[in-house]
Every structure is written in structure tokens, then in C-alpha cells.
């Protein structure tokens, strides 16, 4: 299936209106790097925002940036780094993806521990609804309560309410010192919980803190034991004190900051990927549920401060069955990223409740945008 790239918002509007009139479902993609993420979509035609690209406005002193949806994260990284700033959003998959898709899927990565998720960074956006109407929510300034919050509603809507065409985001100044450390952890139960209680107690929040299992540590070239990998930021004195706070976990050593990039790009495109989560204090039990997949070679990592565990598995009949058994037996929150369809069938359907269906209908009355992607279909 080839994706038709639309050169401008006008062309996109025409295309969506035409599809709505014909009731012909559209698969909406950015660069297509995550093409197979999310629930299976029932669509014959694919449109791409990749040609709606480019930064529209970036005033470093305002710490805000507005770009067209098809702009890649890499381009934003480059533009902002030149001014010692960043968009503190590091979704798994790397920087080849587009800003629009990152916001549409509410994708985040390790930096979410320090900076929150896309809903905390989005200031405003423009979209084309399923009826082909161009609308905006929010604005370009860092604080705004004018009108109902269309921007947050669209964040994480997976393209099912509208095609996002432009996004304004909040940036952060890069910390003076950006240092990463790794602490090997004992391969026994209670290790993740120890990291969580430490994070709860210390007087700062690191930029990122992920616990990785032994298989993932090996894949990252970061030793053979489970470990906590922590990203610290601040002035020199602050970072030195932060680093010392982790001594009680084990022997702390510095690790090159590139470890984060490797973590974001470690999985193959056809891997099985899902997340389990609960209140942070339950992290150990969530981790234990996921650890049942270690025998299948699962790469597992957790953000203890957020109560989230993420599992990556090679795709095979065996791993699918093992994942099915974990996903159907746990009581915590389960979110699929990339799954074979039999696993999607096990998971809850977040778009199936009456209110979500009404939202979908209001924005996409003909049901042409990514139908099925949020599980709204019967």
C-alpha cells in the first residue's frame, strides 16, 4: 500500500472531504516509521503528512516552537540544539518519526520521568477533522485557557479525530550538565522497588531513570546484570550530589549519554511491544508479571517513578503465546504498541465506551479516519 503525501492543508482538506463523501476509510501516517503500530486499521487508502514539513516559528527566547506535522523529530533536535535547547520528548523508535505522529500517538520515552508526556508539552495544534474542517486548539504561548482544550483531546487520539497538520510545543533549555550513570542491580526480587523508593525519597527528579533487565543491559552493551540507568541534569554541584544519591543502590559508574539513543532504537520493527502499568508503589509486582517473559528472551525496562514496565519480544508463535498469557492474567493497565492481531483481541478497547464514541462521531461523522485504531469498532 503506498501512501499519498499531501502537499498542503488545502489538498488534505479536499482529500478528507472526498473520502468522507465516499465513506472510504483513510489510514493516516506521518513518515510511516511506525506504520504497524496501534490496532489494525480498516482502510484501503493511505495518506501521509510527510510533505507538510518544516519549522514555522522558533524564537529561542520564548522556549516554544511551531512546526508542520510532517517535520521530523530529528529536524527539531537539530534546530533547537543550536540554541542549547530541546524538545524533551524521546519516543521509542528514534528521531526519524514526525512531530505530528508523536503527538497523535502521545508517544514518549525515558525523558517522560523528568518532563512528562506529550500532553504536558503540547501548547496548541491545527487539525483537519474527519469532516474536512480546519480547526485549531490552544495557541503558541506557554499558558492558554482560551476555549475548550482541543489540543489535548487530539494528543493521543491516534489520528482518529483529525489529521494533525501543525503543532506548537514547549521547549526546555538543556541543563548545564547532562550526565548519565548506570548502577548494576542484584538479579533478585525487590530490586525495582528499591529504585522506586529511592526516587520517591531523594529531593530531585532525574531527567530519566529506567531499570533494564539483564537481556536488555546486554543488548545495550551495558554489562550483563540488570541495572538502573539514570540521566541527571543541573549545574555541576547539583549533578554531583544527585549522582551520590544513587550510591546506596550499588556501584555507580558513568555511561555515555548515547545509551539513551540505543535504548530508543533497540527493537526491531516487527517486535511485539507492550506496556504494563499501575501506581508506582506496585512496580515490583508489575515487573514480576513481565519477568515471566524473560525465558522468551524479552527485553524489559521500567520507569519506576511512573509505574510503567515495557516489554519487547521477538515475534514468534511461542512469544505470542507467552505474551498472551501475561496480558490476560494481569490486572494492571495494559497498553499495546505493536502486537499481532490475536494479542490486540485480548486487550481492552479504550474507544469503545459511549462517551468516546460520541467524541469520535463529533469529529469524524463518516468514520473515515483510522477506523479501528482506538478500538471503537464493534
Amino acid at each position, binding site marked *: 500500500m503506498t501512501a499519498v503525501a499531501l502537499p498542503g492543508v488545502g489538498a488534505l482538506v479536499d482529500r478528507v472531504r472526498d473520502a468522507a463523501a465516499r465513506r472510504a476509510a483513510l489510514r493516516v501516517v506521518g513518515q510511516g516509521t511506525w506504520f504497524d503500530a496501534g490496532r489494525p486499521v480498516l482502510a484501503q487508502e493511505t495518506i501521509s503528512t510527510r510533505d507538510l514539513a518544516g519549522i514555522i516559528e522558533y524564537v529561542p527566547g520564548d522556549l516554544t516552537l511551531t512546526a508542520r506535522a510532517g517535520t521530523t523529530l530529528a529536524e527539531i533536535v537539530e534546530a533547537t540544539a543550536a540554541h542549547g535547547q530541546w524538545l524533551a520528548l524521546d519516543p521509542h523508535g528514534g528521531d526519524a518519526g514526525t512531530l505530528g505522529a508523536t503527538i497523535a500517538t502521545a508517544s514518549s520515552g525515558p525523558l517522560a520521568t523528568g518532563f*512528562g508526556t506529550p500532553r504536558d508539552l503540547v501548547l496548541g495544534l491545527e487539525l483537519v477533522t474527519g469532516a474536512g474542517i480546519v480547526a485549531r486548539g490552544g495557541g503558541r504561548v506557554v499558558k492558554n*485557557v482560551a476555549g*475548550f482544550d*482541543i489540543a*489535548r*483531546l487530539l494528543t493521543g487520539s491516534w489520528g482518529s479525530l483529525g489529521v494533525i497538520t501543525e503543532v506548537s510545543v514547549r521547549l526546555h533549555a538543556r541543563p548545564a550538565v547532562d550526565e548519565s550513570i548506570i548502577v548494576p542491580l542484584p538479579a533478585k526480587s525487590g530490586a525495582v522497588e528499591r529504585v522506586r523508593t529511592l526516587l520517591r525519597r531523594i529531593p530531585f527528579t532525574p531527567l530519566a531513570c529506567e531499570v533494564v533487565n539483564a537481556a536488555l543491559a546486554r543488548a545495550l552493551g551495558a554489562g550483563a546484570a540488570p541495572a538502573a540507568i539514570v540521566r541527571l541534569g543541573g*549545574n555541576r554541584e547539583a549533578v554531583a550530589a544527585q549522582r551520590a544519591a544513587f550510591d546506596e543502590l550499588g556501584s555507580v559508574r558513568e555511561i555515555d549519554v548515547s545509551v539513551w539513543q540505543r535504548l530508543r532504537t533497540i527493537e526491531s520493527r516487527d517486535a511485539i511491544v507492550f506496556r504494563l502499568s*499501575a501506581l508506582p508503589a506496585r512496580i515490583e509486582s508489575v515487573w514480576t508479571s513481565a519477568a515471566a517473559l524473560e525465558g522468551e528472551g524479552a527485553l524489559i525496562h521500567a520507569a519506576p517513578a511512573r*509505574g510503567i514496565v515495557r516489554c519487547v519480544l521477538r515475534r514468534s508463535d511461542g512469544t505470542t503465546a507467552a505474551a498472551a498469557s501475561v496480558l490476560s492474567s494481569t490486572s494492571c493497565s495494559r497498553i499495546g504498541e505493536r502486537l499481532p492481531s490475536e494479542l490486540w483481541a485480548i486487550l481492552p478497547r479504550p474507544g469503545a465506551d459511549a462517551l468516546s464514541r460520541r467524541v469520535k462521531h463529533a*469529529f469524524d461523522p463518516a468514520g473515515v479516519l483510522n477506523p479501528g485504531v482506538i478500538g471503537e469498532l464493534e
Partner: protein
Amino acid sequence: MSATALPSTSNPPGIIDQALADRLAGIVGAKRVLYRPSELLTYTSDGLPSYHKQPGLAVFPGTRDEVVAVVRVLAERHVPFVPRGAGTGLSGGALADGLVLIGLNRLTRILSIDAENCRAVVEPGVVNVALSRAVAQYGLHYAPDPSSQAACTIGGNVAENAGGPHCLKYGVTTNHVVAITAVLPSGEIVELGDTEGEHEGYDLVGAFVGSEGCFGIALQVTVRLSRNAEAVRTLLADFMSLDSAARAVSGVVATGIVPAALEMIDQATIRAVESSIYAAGYPTDASAALLIELDGAAAGLEHDVATVESICKSSGARTVRIARDEAERARLWQGRKKAFGAMGRVSSHLVVQDAVVPRTRLPEVLERIHEIGERHRVRVCNVFHAGDGNLHPNIAYSAADADETARVHLAMREIMRACVDVGGTITGEHGVGLDKLEYMALIFSPDSLATMCALREVFDPERRANPGKVVPMHACREWTAAPAARVTSRGRA
């Protein structure tokens, strides 16, 4: 309507009459249903003294079940209503012109505190500061801190997506709300968000926060609590020009240090504060003062304090004072937090504006505002969240003076336009309500406004919750051919 009773008619849809009052009294008790004008006086305005609208009736449920029962009776009869928390809103949002006002200030229970996970579940009438006080014993607080925090409610904060001085570093209400249980105007109860794990699906919490009472009533709110900072330093820097103060703001932000708060107070405000009971020791001859707070881990904090101090000095600060102890810090903040109150003493009326501009445009916008004020011969005071570019140009005036009142309104309109012209917005935290309705079209296209109406109708297809607020009515007409039922009479006898 007579002074003592409501009309006892049959009850066509939308009518507020004796039968309705009786039904509601049956739910909440007769003492909790008010309809005499004298009893309703308190509820004819909110924090903005310039609007007065009398509710047709006010009802004060005491429990969540009573709220739901009240809403269901109103749904049955298609009667429009307006939720109200503490009534401190600054956009006329809680005014119920001839409608039913539902007061939520009796729902004041903190239902649970989970210190380990930094969560609390509260009823909507819990006063903002009461929550922070209740969790202080765990070394926690609720971060969004509107200057009205001693009075305003969490329900009102959710409805307005309230901010406050410390939101520069810690985020506004929407960044701290995890889940909401709400009753929709139809009487349906919905659970938005996820109280435990990660949420998947539409961000309906995000949509509800900031919906200004138009989507229904928040019955229960799960919020995130924040850990108290290990160390706090509060600085007061005073400047001989607004421009140099604004440059110091940009300078601080550019370093990457994120102050917990970065507030600007201009000379007119300083003088109002210093001549009030809230005198904080601000230098009255300064053109502007910056109140800057840095917090976080103790290690490295002094280094940041020194950096900020030197930026202020190199931008032209005359003196930089660092609070020596908690008492001095509290006093510096008291002046800022009570500034509106102090200005209210200067004149009988006060318009409070709430625009946001890109931070780098602050100097030129402050200049513009000054020029507009001079031209219209009105006294503009600026006290605002400078770190966010969130301006609060306020004008104190006498409403008895028709000419002055007219000049105030002209000046305000020009100020709003000036802020929008540089890429700003019309409200950063107070909401649109009634007061900013006329400015919505300055920043949103008819299609954007119609899309907002469509979202509202998802929650409230009859448009009965806080009707006529946020989105101008005319913008809503075309989008949906025929909303289920239109309220034809406002029921004012």
C-alpha cells in the same frame, strides 16, 4: 417573581417554578434551596465586581448523590444550570442569569490521600489550600497555587484550568489532574482518565479540565501531589524601568534555570500594596519589582541563586534582596498574592485582564499597555506571572463615572488586541466565561469555534450546562443542524 415565592405554573421545559424548587428541596432540604432575591445577593457576581446576574434559584447539595439527584431533576425538566465553587472566578463564569445555580462548596471532603504514590482524591468543594495543608504532614503539596488559593475550590480550578505563580516550574491544573468522575448534564455519571495505571484512549480529562462548567459537574477529582522542595530561596529585585525588569526575565529564562516562580509587580501595584494592610516592604520608588523563587534540592541551589542575582544586576536591578527566613519570604509573597485585593481598595471597581504574550515580547507589550493607558487616561496596574508571559493588566475605576467606565473598556479592548497582535492569547488562567467571549473571535476562526461547540455537545447535547459561556453562541449554530432540545425560556418570571 414575587419576593417570597416562585410562580406555581405547570412546568413546560426549562421553567424554574415552585414545583421545581419543591422537588429540589426534597433532595437537599428546604434550607438549601434559595430563591428570594435577598438570599441570592451573594451569588449575583463572582470575583469580577463588574457583572451582576441574579440566579433564578440556587441549590446547595451536600453529597455527591445529592448533586447527581439535582442534576437528574434538572435534566428531566430541561432546565439549564451553572455549577459554582467559591465564586472567585475572574471571568464571570459562575454567573447564572435567571438559571439554576448549583453550589458545590459543601462537598469538602478529601476522600483519600496516598502519600506513597503522591495522589489524593477530593470532592470538588475542597478549598485549594486545604488540600496542601492536609498533605503537608507527608511533605507534599498540591502544586497549582492560584493567588486565590485560600478561597477557591479544586472543582473551580479544574473548570478553569487554574494556574498560579508556581506553575512556571510545576505546570497548571491540567498537568496535575489524573482522573475525574463527573456527572454530565443528562445525569449520566462518567469516569474520565485512569486512577492507577497509564491512560489509553481519548484524553477526556484533558478535555474536561478548562471546560468552565460547560461539560458537566466534577464530582470527584484525583490529583497528583508534589513533594515539597528541600530548599527554597526567594529574591526581590527592584528596577528603575519596566524594560530592564523585562530583560531580566528573559535573561533568567535563557539560562535554563527554571525558577519556581517569576512574578513582576509594577510601580502602581507596589504603591497599592504598600499602602494597604498587606505591605510587604516593596520599594515604592521602583518602577518594577521581580519576585523570583528558586527551589529544589539544596545542593547547587545557591549557585543558581547567585546566577539569577547577577543577571538581575546586569539587567539594571538597583537592589536584590534575598529573604533571610520563612517569615520574610511569607511577607514578600503576601504582597503579591493580595495585590488584587489591595488594588480593589483603591477604587470601587477593578477590571482584571489575563492575556499571555510570548516572553520575548514583554518589553514592547508593556510599553504598548502604558501608552494605551495614558491615551485613555486610565490607571493600569500590572502584576503578573512574567516567567510565563502571563500578563494581568488591571484597571481600577469608579463605575459611577460613565465616562471613565467607557474609557476603561476601550483601553482594555486595545490592550487585548495588542497582546493578540504579537502572537498571544486572551486568557492564560482565568478562563473566557462571559468576560472574554467577545475576544474569542480574535484568536479562533469560526470553524475552530464550531469545533469547540461540537465537543461541548458531546458532553452536553442540550447545551444546558453554563449556557452562553466560553464560545459565542452564534459560532455554534451552523455546526449541528438541531441539538436535541433547545431551551426556549430562561424561566425568569
